[in-house]
């Protein structure tokens, strides 16, 4: 038995971890799971308890990490579920292809990307990950493996993408890739002095960029409430590179710093220290800078450069709160930002983005609208009450919170946020009547 937590390092539980290296081994592990069931786990970057299964089995899928086929002319890759986006980038970038969607870390697996239906800075252009998945193989509760496409098995496809691993174990998948001519990014940076300016800029100019995101200072109050740094960009064209960069335009060399120390005291992140950090971060950003050439790792995955950065939050760990509400709900968004700013919530990682059209996954998170994500140390006083209030605001505005990051939502809030929850439950009951696939998240939220 091993003690497992998510990336936020909260609420550990014990499970027997199996490390299959073949689909056959995975099948045997699933069939032998017993009454506490099983769930797949990738690189454990979900913040909460999605890849934990107290008292049961957890299938560590990282041993199933072979790239099976790259169809260069068509621009698709078929790989086992445990392959990470990092591995894919390493192999695909020199060939002129990029993953269609990447979150803020490369260390997520293909299976996890499907189970969480992840999104990235290009959601307004490219939608979520599932939009680019043409098929996947799913190991189901009866031990059979089915090939699922949205055409052949629409319900199962849409229950599995974003389904948090509860319909079965994805074993392999085929994904359509994005062609790129360089491995560098051309980035525009600008500051917005307050929330109004931020929303206006994102609304009027986001469509010019493939990638767009805003870091927002949630500790700023009064006239500068909601001040932000916008970072937007595109894959650079060879003509934009310096002669040195042009020599190897598709190189992929992410830099890595030493890991965060194992024992950091809790309470480093207080409103005062985070306030100072935010002030510096905002001031250090240029008022406006165009066409800066950055590495892919710098633009998309700055935190991946510091392994185990989650230790910074100390023993008590942290959580991430991410929600989305419709574009017409700007007033609610403003109220929420005010509420967070008033509570002096010590969040230095707060990100606002404008989502494009959502995809039809039943529990898929992204929907057209505004999404805000913030990291918060769990030791913050009054945090439970604050987040419950925010949940109510979000649900009242027809929005939802992201299950891949959740670690504290009340089960009664769920149905209002995910209107297809009943379909999801019905399909699971049919496909897996004994409830073999389960997780701490599923138990906590009664999924």
């Amino acid at each position, binding site marked *: 038995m091993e003690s497992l937590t998510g990336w936020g390092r909260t*609420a550990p*539980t014990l499970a027997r971890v199996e490390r299959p290296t073949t689909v056959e081994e995975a099948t045997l592990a699933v069939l032998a799971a017993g009454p506490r069931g099983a769930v797949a786990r990738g690189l454990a970057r979900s913040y909460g308890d999605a890849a934990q299964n107290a008292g049961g089995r957890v299938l560590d899928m990282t041993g199933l990490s072979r790239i099976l086929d790259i169809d260069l002319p068509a621009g698709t890759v078929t790989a086992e579920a445990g392959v990470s986006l990092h591995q894919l980038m390493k192999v695909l970038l020199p060939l002129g292809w990029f993953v269609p969607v990447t979150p803020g870390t490369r260390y997520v697996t293909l299976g996890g990307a499907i189970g969480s239906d992840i999104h990235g800075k290009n959601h307004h252009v490219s939608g979520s990950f599932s939009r680019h998945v043409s098929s996947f193989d799913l190991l189901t509760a009866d031990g059979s493996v089915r090939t699922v496409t949205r055409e052949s098995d629409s319900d199962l496809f849409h229950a599995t993408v974003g389904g948090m691993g509860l319909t079965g174990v994805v074993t392999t998948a085929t994904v359509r890739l994005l062609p790129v001519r360089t491995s560098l990014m051309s980035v525009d940076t600008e500051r917005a002095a307050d929330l109004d300016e931020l929303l206006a800029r994102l609304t009027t100019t986001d469509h010019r960029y493939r990638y767009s995101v805003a870091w927002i200072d949630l500790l700023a109050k009064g006239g500068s409430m909601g001040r932000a740094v916008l970072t937007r960009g595109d894959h650079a064209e060879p003509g934009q590179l310096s002669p040195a960069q042009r020599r190897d335009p598709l190189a992929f060399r992410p830099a890595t710093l030493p890991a965060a120390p194992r024992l950091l005291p809790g309470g480093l992140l207080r409103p005062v220290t985070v306030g100072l950090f935010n002030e510096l971060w905002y001031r250090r950003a240029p008022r406006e800078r165009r066409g800066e050439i950055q590495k892919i790792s710098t633009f998309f995955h700055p935190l991946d450069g510091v392994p185990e950065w989650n230790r910074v939050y100390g023993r008590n760990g942290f*959580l991430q709160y991410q929600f989305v509400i419709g574009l017409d709900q700007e007033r609610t968004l403003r109220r929420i930002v005010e509420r967070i700013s008033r509570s002096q919530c010590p969040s230095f990682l707060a990100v606002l983005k404008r989502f494009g059209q959502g995809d039809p996954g039943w529990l898929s998170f992204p929907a057209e609208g505004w999404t805000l994500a913030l990291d918060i140390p769990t030791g913050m006083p009054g945090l439970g009450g604050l987040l419950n209030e925010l949940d109510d605001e979000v649900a009242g505005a027809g929005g939802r919170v992201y299950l891949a990051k959740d670690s504290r939502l009340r089960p009664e809030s769920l149905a209002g946020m995910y209107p297809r929850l009943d379909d999801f439950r019905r399909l699971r009951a049919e496909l897996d009547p004994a409830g073999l696939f389960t997780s701490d998240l599923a138990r906590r939220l009664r999924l």
Partner: protein
Amino acid sequence: MKNALGDHQSLLVLGGSSEIARSTARLMVGRRTRTVHLAGRPSPELDASAAELRALGAEVTVLDFDAADVDSHAAVLGKAFTEGDIDVVLLAFGVLGDQAEDERDPVAAARVAQVNYVGAVSASLVCTQQLRGQGHGALVVLSSVAGERARRSNYIYGSSKAGLDVFAQGLGDSLRGSGVQVLVVRPGFVHTRMTAGLKPAPLATTPDAVAAAVLDGLGRNAHTVWAPGALRFVMSGLRHLPRPVFRRLPI
């Protein structure tokens, strides 16, 4: 399941009419707990406790549980675990007895030991086996400062709590690494029905204060809490007093 903020969703109370248990359950339902199983002998107090928690929004089931009937424990308590995981088990039953009376009536004295120690050993083991299978959860055992040192005025009750306390410490150590926490709670004099009419000892406390200490201990993943906390130091002093001196203290 426990969430990231340490809030619990489900609670099983053994001794559901105990006032400390009622306070703890009330506090937990006020936070996050939605499912409560109240185990105890059928009584108006048990029903009132269930009604009160329902009014606060919890789903409450009542289990007919007799601490002294150890043969029934596996079946009765096992039932609570069939409906879903239990995050916290609160072992709160116990009888105070009547020291003077019990000294004259060995059967009555044995009954105190039977409920407080024998019943608790059986019920704790039944529950921790289930918790271990779940891979998570906590058992909270209500011990007492009376178990720290035998006192002339209540050594029958005290010895039963002493046995329980030592048992629970060992149980907690045996469960290290299993994902299951055992929290031993040592309240001092608590103003309850059980102590009504008795002269309060110094540092007397209330059920609500004990409940708060329980939740604090759970949150800190502690193995022992004293209620109030100052008793830790008082008892540490008393424990080391020589017998001839201790015997003469007016306690």
